[in-house]
């Protein structure tokens, strides 16, 4: 009731929080980038029904979607260590988030690609384009436009889910805040501060994606 909210406390914690924010941004942006690549490759393998690989991708997507992310993170951090693969918190985190986002992006991109009219593929092939040419120059530019809202959702989720990495000791934003709360008990200040920071990044990310979407949409507007 008589909680004594202190802005100066937030101010004093800012250098620490900025370090955490930087770590969050670094891990999230790398993971988002990798997850987009995984999504494009995975969707390509699925759409062209490449034998064996297509089934492997389907299994991977299923596995990721039906297990908790935290379990995946622990599996990569602790589980792989049992096999002598010690990636450390940073790379374990990036691997876990990339695989997680990659699975969702595979479905997102696949959805976009299957929305491309089959006449496009026939026209491309009849002009002599190879399947990869078709994917690169026709299907992806048309299909990604459709996938982008879903991919933005996935990217935002990757960003937010990076806070799980505090469980394996990665000094990202949430970890930094939790540490301070543990010593200074300034709970409200810390969670308000990092909440605002997450919100700010999501808004910037969304704005950037909307710009990209506008570019891809341009040919489809009559004027």
């Amino acid at each position, binding site marked *: 009731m008589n909680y004594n909210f202190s802005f100066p406390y937030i101010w004093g914690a800012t250098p620490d929080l900025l370090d955490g924010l930087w770590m969050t941004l670094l891990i999230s942006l790398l993971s988002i980038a990798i997850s987009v690549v995984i999504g494009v490759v995975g969707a390509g393998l699925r759409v062209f029904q490449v034998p064996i690989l297509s089934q492997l991708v389907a299994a991977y997507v299923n596995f990721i979607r039906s297990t908790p992310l935290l379990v995946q993170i622990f599996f990569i951090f602790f589980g792989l260590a049992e096999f002598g693969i010690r990636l450390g918190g940073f790379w374990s985190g990036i691997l876990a988030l990339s695989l997680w986002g990659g699975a969702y992006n595979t479905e997102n991109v696949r959805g976009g690609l299957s929305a491309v009219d089959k*006449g496009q593929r*026939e*026209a491309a092939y009849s002009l002599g384009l190879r399947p990869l*040419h078709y994917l690169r120059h026709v299907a992806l530019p048309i299909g990604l436009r459709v996938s982008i809202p879903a991919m933005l959702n996935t990217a935002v989720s990757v960003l937010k889910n990076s806070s799980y990495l505090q469980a394996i000791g990665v000094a990202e934003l949430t970890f930094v805040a939790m540490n301070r709360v543990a010593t200074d008990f300034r709970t409200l200040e810390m969670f308000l501060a990092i909440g605002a920071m997450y919100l700010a990044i999501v808004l910037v990310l969304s704005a950037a994606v909307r710009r990209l979407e506008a570019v891809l949409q341009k040919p489809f507007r009559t004027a």
Partner: protein
Amino acid sequence: MSETQSTQTGHASAIRVEGLNKWFGSFQVLFDINLTVENGERVVICGPSGSGKSTLIRCINALEDHQQGVIEVEGKALGHDSTSVYDVRTEVGMVFQHFNLFPHLTILENCILAPTVVRKTPRKEAEATAMHFLEKVKIPEQANKYPIQLSGGQQQRVAIARSLCMRPRVMLFDEPTSALDPEMIKEVLDTMVALAGEGMTMVCVTHEMGFARKVANRVVFMDAGAIVEVNSPDAFFTNPQNERTQAFLNQVLQH
């Protein structure tokens, strides 16, 4: 054997289809199709809906695979390996009922995509070729617009130009005017007539009988997956040999 012979003597037919049978699953769509098209020849294919016209010409550039028979384009046999498929496709252009322009690319970009990507033609040169063909189809001023900004007739003319940019030896048309409003049919047919006048080898699936009379060397009538009659346009329209042809003509010419 005959294929190597024909290539060696330099008298390969533009298209040679022999003993072609095709199934969709267990459903046979094409029955023992034999059809040879010589260079510079214009063949019109017509027949009732579902008779296999589209399937036949789609087999010629391997948009559909076939299970039995020989398909050769300019002496190159169409096998089931991807190399022969790509070889044949670069010789054959195709125009579709629904144009199928790439919506995210401008008209000019539509025309230069395949030449730059497949043939590795330098961009400048590809653009010059594209403008040449866009002028041929009388639409150069639209080069920097997007497909959605053009009328159906204009889009179809661009689709023709886009195919020509690959400098195909043979052009296939699958009902190129049947998705068009009546007032746009003529501009597309005129383009096709002009193309025929330049000696392009053409196989057209169409029910435009005026076009058939004007440019076709031969008219092929298909029914239920088989070629029922092949005739000169004059004989085909005035004195059809087959009763199914007669029934079909009565229907088409009434409209």
